[in-house]
């Protein structure tokens, strides 16, 4: 049977330094491999590379027999269920605890009851709360559960990656976590844990020294009694489904895209009755301007998902960064229809359709530009807005073409 995780001669650069050079690592089912080394030795880098989050200068990363990323930039989702806890928690403050855990669990296509796990972590009474209302330690517990629950729900071997999972956890919680790691290992899942915590190191079957790349077996950890975790099939939550849900919960779209459209309509209407005196080309240009403005604001979720590196978590586990999906179609159609009413123009189905498609295309075009800067150290400072005028020419050509 192939290893659940294989790093083949991996070389990774961060900043101007080569952090990993010709690095090899393998994690099989039933193994708990602990990454050890001093601060800055590259433990988190190994973990993020294993999750397919960092580009490689050389080598490849395999989940099972499938290459998830290689040095030529090829990237695909692995066939395995992946549980992941990064150094940051990867959870948005606007999420409800119970819903987040169910969503994380669904990534493997199965679900299990989260309540016993919340109870063991002394969080059952917080199940219906927003993550933003929890303490740092409590959010860390949720982040750890997000990685463990998919494995507990799965009958197939899973890969679980944990980066400093015990940081901020109280002693009781660490003790429970050690038991869970043991149970998951006994069930045949593969665990990779970056930690300095001696209690977690006691659960390891192998120690991997990141600085030297050497893996040594260690004394067999004590087995713990099995835990019953009934599971049932579950529909996987897609980035689009999560994105639309988050948009409706937080109303992010109204704050940026919606307001841009409303302000555009408002400013045009405030100019008086100039509209009937315009040429057909100018009239259509003004009619579609609110939908265009809404799209130009891009995807507000891209900025929101930087909170606690939620975007990275989604890219590794969910296969993409959450987005508004088809929502821009609806917003574009509504604001174009609204602009028609405002300009006292008969409602034209073609114009509404074009407004919807325009908003959708521009919204996702700007999102593409926004996502192009996610690797940067300071993505918010990269001024992607400077690139948006590239969309004005296609807009002008579209309006010109429609009025011929």
């Amino acid at each position, binding site marked *: 049977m192939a290893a659940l995780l294989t790093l083949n001669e991996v070389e990774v*650069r*961060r*900043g*101007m330094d080569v952090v990993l050079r010709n690095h090899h690592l393998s994690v099989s089912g039933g193994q708990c491999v602990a990454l050890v080394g001093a601060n800055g030795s590259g433990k988190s880098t190994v973990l993020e590379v294993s999750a397919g989050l960092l*580009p490689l*200068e050389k080598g490849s990363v395999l989940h099972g027999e499938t290459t998830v990323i290689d040095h030529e930039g090829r990237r695909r989702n692995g066939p395995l269920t992946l549980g992941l806890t990064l150094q940051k928690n990867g959870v948005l403050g606007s999420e409800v605890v119970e819903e987040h855990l169910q969503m994380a669990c669904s990534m493997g296509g199965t679900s299990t009851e989260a309540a016993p796990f919340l109870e063991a972590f002394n969080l059952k009474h917080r199940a219906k709360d927003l993550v933003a209302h929890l303490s740092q330690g409590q959010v860390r517990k949720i982040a750890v559960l997000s990685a463990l629950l998919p494995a507990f729900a799965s009958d197939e071997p899973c890969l679980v990656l944990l980066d400093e999972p015990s940081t901020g956890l109280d002693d009781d919680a660490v003790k429970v976590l050690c038991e869970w790691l043991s149970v998951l290992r006994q069930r045949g899942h593969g665990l990779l844990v970056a930690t300095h915590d001696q209690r977690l190191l006691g659960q390891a079957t192998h120690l991997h020294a990141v600085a030297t790349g050497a893996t040594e077996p260690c004394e067999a950890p004590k087995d713990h009694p099995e835990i019953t975790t009934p599971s049932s099939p579950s529909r996987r939550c897609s980035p689009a489904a999560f994105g639309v849900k988050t948009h409706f919960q937080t109303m992010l779209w109204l704050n940026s895209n919606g307001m841009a459209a409303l302000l555009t309509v408002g400013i045009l209407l405030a100019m008086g009755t100039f509209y009937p005196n315009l040429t057909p080309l100018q009239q259509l240009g003004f009619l579609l301007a609110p939908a265009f403005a809404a799209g130009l604001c891009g995807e507000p979720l891209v900025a929101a998902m930087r909170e606690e590196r939620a975007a990275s978590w989604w890219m590794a586990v969910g296969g993409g960064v959450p987005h508004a999906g088809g929502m821009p179609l609806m917003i574009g159609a509504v604001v174009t229809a609204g602009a028609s009413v405002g300009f006292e123009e008969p409602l034209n189905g073609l114009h509404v359709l074009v407004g919807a498609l325009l908003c959708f295309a521009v919204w996702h075009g700007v999102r593409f530009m926004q996502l*192009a*800067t996610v*690797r*940067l*150290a*300071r993505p918010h*400072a*990269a*001024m*992607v807005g*400077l*690139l948006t*005028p*590239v969309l*004005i*020419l296609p807009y*002008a050509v579209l309006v*010109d073409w429609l009025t011929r």
Partner: protein
Amino acid sequence: MASAVLFVGFGGIGASMLLALLWAPSVSIDAFESPAAQRIFYWHVPAAWAAFIAFGALFIGSAGWLFKRSDRMWRLHVAGSEAGLATGLMTVWSGCVWGAAEWGTPWDWTDVRLNTFGLLTLLAIYVVLGRNSQPDGVETRDTFAAFGLYGFVLVPLTYIATRIWTIRHPGPVVGTDDGGSINGEMGLVLLFSAISFTVLIVGHMMASMRLTDLEQKLERLQVQTDKVA
């Protein structure tokens, strides 16, 4: 060396401008709305030519970094983007002045060459400002090198724009099958100006590459000092 080349370039451009204003013949009054403003052409066209050289360097530097991981190619990327920004702004600014006098408007959203060139300049602004906002590292270099490659798609489009869509911008006046449409003296001054701009932009890029090299050496020394401390 770079300083000498820059000095020659500046001198050549100064001489070109003197020749353009004092010696080159005026264009036909009938053909132009604003014949006096036409003389800006001796600045506008060579600046655009120099911008294409700079954007070419940006493309080569970007590709060199992405495919070869060459520090020298990264320095070329930096130099090309800065030179592209400078010459792009020279071209756009002079074009707006000329357009205002000749067309009655400084900008025409329906003119493909004008807009694609404007976008190229905007891309150069983005690459220069965006890169300066980030710490140097492979993530920064990969991201902005990728933008450098995307932007180069606009160069051939901008170059052929007036051959495909002649709206406001005049068609090509040199390098055409009929031998061109400008007279000898005008062509001579234009050629001299284009050579001067080429020398200037080459000098600019040499100086910029040297500066980036020194910055990289300083960065390495700082890292070594950190380790010792």
